[in-house]
């Protein structure tokens, strides 16, 4: 019953997983480029952002096709409308990974201890992965866990900020790259916010209730 629709919904899941893993990969590559001063990798992250944009178009078109052909209601309508909202956040995550890569490609970052900012990047990656997993598996607990996990990213942000402040005040060199690093941290913090948005839409797709409504 409704075989074609079931296939389309399955296709939507596959595409979302793909888009999610593209976002993850870009964040991971941006972190690598930062820690290894790998300019080539940074450039590649910037160039590949268009692939995420393209994926967004494809998913959007699939969702519109389903709305037109299947006139979904109830759970199906929530799944498709959530997917439409989620891909906007995922596209922004891709942009921010590219922004991080752009800073890496231009700055000469000479701080030795990058552990907190790397930890922060990894924490956001986990949020992105988990939020998409929660959608595909319709896992409300995991979605809530992602929303809570944003605090971890925020704590990292405070730590990185404090580190950079003390670095600038103790250092004799100019603080330019400290400002660059602060921007990178801010981008990670935004990625965490977007992953939280995704998790909130997952919550809506399962329960019909969206935070704040």
């Amino acid at each position, binding site marked *: 019953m409704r075989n074609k629709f079931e296939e389309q919904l399955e296709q939507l899941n596959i595409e979302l997983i793909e888009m999610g893993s593209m976002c993850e990969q870009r964040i991971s590559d941006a972190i690598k480029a930062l820690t290894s001063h790998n300019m080539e990798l940074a450039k590649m992250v910037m160039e590949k952002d268009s692939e995420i944009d393209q994926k967004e178009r494809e998913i959007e078109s699939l969702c519109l096709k389903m709305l037109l052909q299947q*006139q979904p209601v109830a759970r199906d309508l929530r799944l498709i409308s959530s997917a439409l909202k989620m891909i906007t956040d995922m596209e922004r995550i891709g942009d921010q990974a590219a922004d991080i890569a752009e800073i890496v490609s231009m700055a000469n970052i000479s701080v030795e201890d990058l552990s907190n900012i790397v930890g922060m990047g990894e924490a956001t990656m986990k949020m992105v992965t988990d939020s998409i997993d929660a959608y595909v598996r319709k896992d409300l607990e995991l979605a809530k866990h992602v929303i809570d996990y944003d605090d971890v990213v925020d704590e990292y942000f405070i730590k990185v900020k404090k580190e950079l402040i003390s670095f600038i005040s103790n250092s004799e060199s100019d603080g330019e790259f400290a400002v660059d690093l602060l921007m990178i941290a801010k981008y990670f913090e935004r990625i965490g916010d977007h992953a939280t948005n995704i998790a909130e839409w997952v919550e809506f797709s399962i329960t019909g209730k969206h935070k704040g409504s």
Partner: protein
Amino acid sequence: MNKIVIENLDLYYKDFKALKNVNLTIPEKEIIAFIGPSGCGKSTLLKSLNRMNDLVEGCRITGLVTLDNKNIYTDIEINMLRKRVGMVFQKPNPFPMSIYDNIAYGPRTHGVKSKAKLDDIIEKSLRDAAIWEEVKDRLKKSALGLSGGQQQRLCIARALAVQPEVLLMDEPTSALDPISTSKIEDLAVELKKDYTIVMVTHNMQQAARISDKTAFFLLGEVIEYNETEKLFSMPKDKRTEDYITGRFG
């Protein structure tokens, strides 16, 4: 205010129990949609609201149906009930007579004789049914010459001519093309200002578009009754969800 209240209604066709303990309240001047698979009892319930099931041999009803707090089986005379609760069927069924006489039929049976008064009723009914402009120049022509969509609006006008309070509609658009369908839907929304409308429909989008409340029927039971927007976005019962999302059975 509740126009119709149904309490603990059971309906049998001989030994077959077609409705099982139905409890529903139908508020005044709203559109209520009944949805559910074929044979689930929605048309049967609709027909019990103006006692059309009385004509079915072996039909037996227990429980209570009230119209403005009066028991329709004991406290309201049947002709008066059917004047107050009109019905429009799935297939347009104009009488084989002129457009004018179709509409005048009901008022005449209720004793209206004055030509001027009949003229007024006919114009008002046809206007209310959004068909006046299309037929005003051919009122004396046969109603059978109208298109399906026009015939259905004529039947609605005929139902309105006796100034009912409630309109029962049994799949009123299932035999019509999309344009006629949307005209009837617009009309139903317009009529809601003055009438209470109960509509059986197989078209889920139609129920979602125009009704205020929806009841989902299955095997003679009301499974879920809620505001339409809620029922179609967050149904409470899994059976409702399965039916409206097309995963039933």
